[in-house]
């Protein structure tokens, strides 16, 4: 074997000195960074769902009941104090589920800000929401009318507009906190099974499970390929070309894996009709929690 080793391998070469400066990270690096974040999120979600908290102890069916009831309350309430009251009702559940209150409400705040407040900002103006002026922003030379729109001569922030924007923000924040509480405290597998409650066909649930799993596996493959490429690369390379090549490779690999997975399913008796295990049985704690959710829900509706 020794005689077959090329001579250059027998010597240590001086490291290449050509070029200099800073090596810039490509957009691929950023993309791969997001893949790693996805992993962390999935692991974190799984960790949270395994904690010994109130919602973690409950059956997915009970949590789906909570989700549906409280999303209904959030959408039917028409004033900001009621939305605030709903948020106050949800807070003890979040605390008792030990999901990390600061991180939890930070996510709720970001979602509320982006999809509620920022999206609702134009509504504070009398251009969108006419009403009692609170603050004048701009004085135009005259009013403008085109198609169905009317732009008044004085652009003001209206009281009704502020309430509408606050209402939207509160609704988004409450909806996100309710959904996030259920998602954070329920493993993905149980979320999928809970979809049975809505009569989603089992083969669709199987496809959902397989897709989730393979998104995971192929993202890992992509991350490993990128790491392997980085380990052999000095400086930047043709990123677009690399992505195109890897996309084709992953497509082929997916196709081959699909065939193998089908064989694995067929080998265990799969004939085209999927039979999945049922959800966990309803326990006393689920019945008690369900009754509590229902009582509080009715209370919220009345208030």
């Amino acid at each position, binding site marked *: 074997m020794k005689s077959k080793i090329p001579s250059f391998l027998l010597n240590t070469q001086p490291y290449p000195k050509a070029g200099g400066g800073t090596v810039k990270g490509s957009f691929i690096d950023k993309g791969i960074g997001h893949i790693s974040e996805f992993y962390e999120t999935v692991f974190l979600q799984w960790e949270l769902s395994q904690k010994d908290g109130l919602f973690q102890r409950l059956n997915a069916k009970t949590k789906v009941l909570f989700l549906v009831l409280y999303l209904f309350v959030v959408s039917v309430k028409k004033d900001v104090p009621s939305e605030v009251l709903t948020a106050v009702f949800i807070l003890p559940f979040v605390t008792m589920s030990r999901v990390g209150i600061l991180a939890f409400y930070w996510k709720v705040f970001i979602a509320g800000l982006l999809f509620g407040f920022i999206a609702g900002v134009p509504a504070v103006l009398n251009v969108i929401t006419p009403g009692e002026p609170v603050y004048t922003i701009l004085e135009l030379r005259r009013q403008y009318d085109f198609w169905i729109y009317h732009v008044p001569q004085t652009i003001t922030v209206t009281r009704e507009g502020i309430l509408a924007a606050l209402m939207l923000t509160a609704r988004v924040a409450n909806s996100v906190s309710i959904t996030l509480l259920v998602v954070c405290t329920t493993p993905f*597998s149980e979320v999928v099974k809970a979809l049975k409650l809505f009569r989603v066909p089992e083969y669709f649930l199987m496809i959902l*499970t*397989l897709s989730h799993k393979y998104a995971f596996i192929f993202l890992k493959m992509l991350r490993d390929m990128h790491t392997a490429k980085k380990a052999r690369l000095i400086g930047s390379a043709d990123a677009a070309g690399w992505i195109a090549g890897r996309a084709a490779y992953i497509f082929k690999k997916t196709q081959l894996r699909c065939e193998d997975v089908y064989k694995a399913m067929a080998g265990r008796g799969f004939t085209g009709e999927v039979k999945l295990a049922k959800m966990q049985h309803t326990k006393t704690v689920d019945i008690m929690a369900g009754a509590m959710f229902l009582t509080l829900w009715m209370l919220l509706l009345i208030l």
Partner: protein
Amino acid sequence: METILALKGAAYKYYEKITALNGVSLSIGRGQRIAVIGANGSGKSSLLQVLAGLMFPQSGEVFFEGVPFTEKSFKNAEFLRRFRTAVGYVFQDSDVQLFCPTVYDELVFGPLQIGMDEGEASGRAVEIMRMLDIEALRDRPPYMLSGGEKKKAAIGSVLTMNPEAILLDEPTSGLDPRTQAFLVELLFALNDAGKTIVLSTHDLALVEELQGETVVLSEGHTIERVGSADDILADEEMLLRVNLIHEHFHRHKGPRGTITHLHRHAHGD
């Protein structure tokens, strides 16, 4: 000994071009312990998949309990249920085999597909988890398992169907020594319980440890030789011919008996 699975002149080509099996004839008796060995690409996995009814030979025949079967046979629900219950296949890549949301779901998947009542399937899953020491992994998604844990879950997913013959494709590859030892012990225990064990490997130490009938596949995708583990391992000329050993291969007698391993040494060039 009653034959459970057999091949007669089976041939298979991938994409009708790449030969995987070239006229292979083989008979597997009920309760036997068989190791199929061969170099990479010699057709070990293909041979096992044909026996497991996952691939079908383009020529030749494959038999289950003395009755020939083809792809069409699996359209018969009774045969399908009988065959899939009797013959279990463990893939080399556990990620292929684990497609359910959790380890528990994996274990009950097979029994549920063959129409077993969920209570019984669940009971079997619990017992298998206890046997494989994976009870703590019950609700964990398979992609969050280590290599050894995945292998245990994959084997468990087949064992819950209580197969009479278990076909394992390179079961010890990529596993740490402790998990390998656990697996070998498990295979012995299953064989002692009357299960037929057929595994493919190119790990000669495993062949020696298993001490079963050994089938050698050549690089021409045919059966080179069938014999006892000791006879096969002693035939160094044949093992060299099928590219399973290097010319510097030696068998050493260790303190606890014979251990087959590669012994590296240099020859003057």
